[in-house]
């Protein structure tokens, strides 16, 4: 039986140098309103040896959750989970009520004031259906971002995650305690 595709993204965060190319590539691709971005990179700190605290860089975007709060609170079903795993906002149905924006525990959504709809990452749907990679992954200088179908054992993401498990790398997702079943994997060696 052929399983449905399930799109996910992996961040190999050791590689991220906070160049923010992903943020601008995405902005250009989808004409994201001037002061908004669909993906971010934040500076974080952990205890370090040579610095007072060791700085690292953490990318983030919509987690395309399996149990997405934004989908369950949407009164018009504009926000919906597709069969390929992508959480998508149908702009024709969105009434701009912003429940989804408030409900997202990852702060991944914003209000597009130019159009009057909630907006967020779509994994570059429909660009990816033409065989492209998402804009952020295409441009990522350091190859931090790996995108693909986790149901396909031969996809780059599946192989990368398998190898990360073998190498006993740290693998996690954000706020798994909330039960949202996010689909962005963070990997650190």
């Amino acid at each position, binding site marked *: 039986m052929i399983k449905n595709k399930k799109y996910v993204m992996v961040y190999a965060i050791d590689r991220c140098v906070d160049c923010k190319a992903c943020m601008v590539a995405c902005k250009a691709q989808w004409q994201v309103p001037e002061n908004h971005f669909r993906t971010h990179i934040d500076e974080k700190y952990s205890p370090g040896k040579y610095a007072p605290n*060791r700085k690292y860089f953490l990318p983030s975007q919509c987690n395309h959750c399996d149990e997405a709060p934004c989908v369950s609170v949407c009164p018009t079903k504009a926000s919906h989970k597709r069969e390929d795993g992508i959480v998508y906002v149908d702009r024709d149905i969105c009434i701009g009520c912003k429940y989804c924006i408030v409900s997202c525990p990852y702060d991944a959504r914003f209000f597009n004031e130019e159009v009057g709809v909630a907006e967020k990452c779509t994994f570059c749907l429909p660009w990816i259906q033409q065989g492209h990679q998402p804009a952020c992954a295409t441009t990522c200088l350091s190859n931090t971002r790996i995108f693909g179908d986790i149901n396909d054992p031969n996809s780059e993401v599946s192989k990368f995650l398998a190898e990360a498990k073998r190498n006993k790398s740290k693998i996690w997702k954000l706020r798994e305690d909330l039960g949202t079943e996010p689909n962005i994997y963070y990997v650190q060696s």
Partner: protein
Amino acid sequence: MASIKMSRRGFLNTAAISAAAMSVPFTLKRSAASDNNAKEDKKLHISQNWCEMCFWGCGVTAYNREGRVFKLEGQPKCPKNYGKLCARGNSGIYQLYDPDRLKKPLIRTGKRGEGKFREATYEEAISYVADKTNKAIKEYGKGTVSLIAHGSGEHAFINLMSIIGSPNTAIPAYSQCTGSREIGWFLTYGRPYTGNEPIDAANSKCLMFFGRNVLEAVMVGETQRVTEGMAKGAKLIYVDPRYSKTAAKADIWAKIKPGTDLALMLGMINYIINAKLYNIDFVDKYCSGFDELKQSVKKNTPEWAEKETNVPAETIKNICQELSNAAPSCAIGPGRRLTRYGDDTQHVRAIGILNALMGNWYTPGGFYKISKMDIVTPHICEIEHTEVKGGEKIERVDGAGSEYRLAPKNLGLENKLMKGILQGEPYPVKVMFAYGTNLFQHYPDYEECKQIIDKLDLMVTCDVYLTETALYSDVIFPESTYLERKDPIGVMTGKYPYVKYREPATAPLYNTIGAYELVEKIAKKMGYKNHFKTIDDVNKEILDQLGISIDVLKKDGVYVKPTFEGIYPQAEGKDLKFNTPSGKVELYSVFCEKLGFDPIPKYTRHKMPKDDEFRLLFGRQSYHTHARTQNNRWLLALHDFEIKAWIPAKKAARLGIMTGNKVRIVKGDKKSRELTAYVTDEIHEDAIFIPHGYGRITKFMELAYAMDGASDANLCSNGTDPISGASAFHQAFVKIEKV
């Protein structure tokens, strides 16, 4: 500030605006947010280019639909970026459609700097320039014309200087950037380092940089290679007074007292020699002056270096051990903008020596050999008479090749040219062309820059924006951006030499032209009868030599040399030759001795800041280039429209400054515009750091002006390295005050 800044989270709290937005009718929703990429691709126009958001020149594919360029992507085959683009590269679209761009030729009507211009036709503006230039040449001679240029069109203007017969061309990339590096490397290895950044980082086991913020300066290919090397396990050692992004990724960060790098290097050399960590075979076979070196650094123990640099002796020893363990698959980078303390050439000499001790020349993971395309780059202009072709020899104003014997004449010394203009020595320079470069943001001191321009009868700028330099110009020519131009095929050297192709992604949006077209018209109007080939003709000559069709370049954007020469001659067992007086790597430089400089680098303590002062450090942000991109809203949004001054915590506490406070930088009677304090232990207590490119005075770049901030150029020092003649910027001491 408040008018241009609106943060993501801040916006969500603005209920009034949200309510207004909710009333947007449904019809607008669909049209305004249509998915560009979802539509049928019949009307898609794809073109090839190289990026000019910085000078690294990444291959770019531009997508245009229905007349609008909507997406830029890296060319997968281009050796400069292999399919990737940085934030600036991706934001080239904003620059193309920036409402603040220059749109027509302008002629000044008010006083210089007052900002009053009238629009002119090309015919009128070119006549104005030709007449004034000819008049100045008649009165003062050919040398009275000067050029400062940077970017793809610089060769057009260099042609103009050759046609006129003036030697006074200066490319700021030498004196204001890499000059000392090139000379220091040349003195040691007999060849310049070159902007290819030939470290084989992807295969390296240990990489070390001194204040070369390699992961934040972001030259795509270099960043790729370094991150690739690190992903494969390379150690990164980084020396900087500041905890930059490179420091954040480093295995060892040495928080050095600014101005003492040379002491650290001598301490390392001392330890490497005494602990016998060096590559004995390489030193015996290929280096000259080892015994003199050993003798010279005898007192520079790691313990001595610790006192000078604040880097613990244990850390210094540890660094040497790491390098030695990885050798020869290791590299110590010689920096890029090396305009720091006036001993920069010796600084690079010491780095050259450290590398030689590791024996990493032309080895995998060390330095690779740069190769060239086997073609002759044709000249676009067949020049009838030039200084070179039997014209009379005219003395250079900047002293390149004479007073500064090692400074190359083709690059010149901008700093000395400017001083010469100010002093009227050795003869008056009355005309200046500035192409793609903004003197005010890289020549120390605004007032002096104004005085220099006031010495001129004619100041001409060709640029995309009305920069500070344009503001003080008499005539401004609006240049087409790289996405609107055709330029001659570029012939590139490197690990993988290639040619690159540029075709317009769109017709020019405004009444703008490219530099080649402009220069041809100016030369003609001045009365010269030189033949300019068309860009197509030049391209054809190159394609014929390569034996390929234009379709290859239209498809891939680049053509990479197919035959691959050995790039690791040492590892391949070939005998190495060095173009130095001794024919070896000169640990002891015979050339330096001849010229009266230390043949082996010696450390002299620089002047240090007083207790209430800071040394002013400045540098790059990942997402801006020089002073060129600060009007780009997409990029400004990346740092939330904020400019941070890094201030050491202890001293900030004394001054009552906390993170988020507005501060000014003060130097004598100069006060900068406002910055936001970032109070931190992540910078040495002697220094403050500001990002480059702000504190603007031209209101014609509206966003850049609104950003406030401090201009490092107005506050830094204007010293000179006596060997290379290049500038020294980091000898300035400043104070900070709370607004």
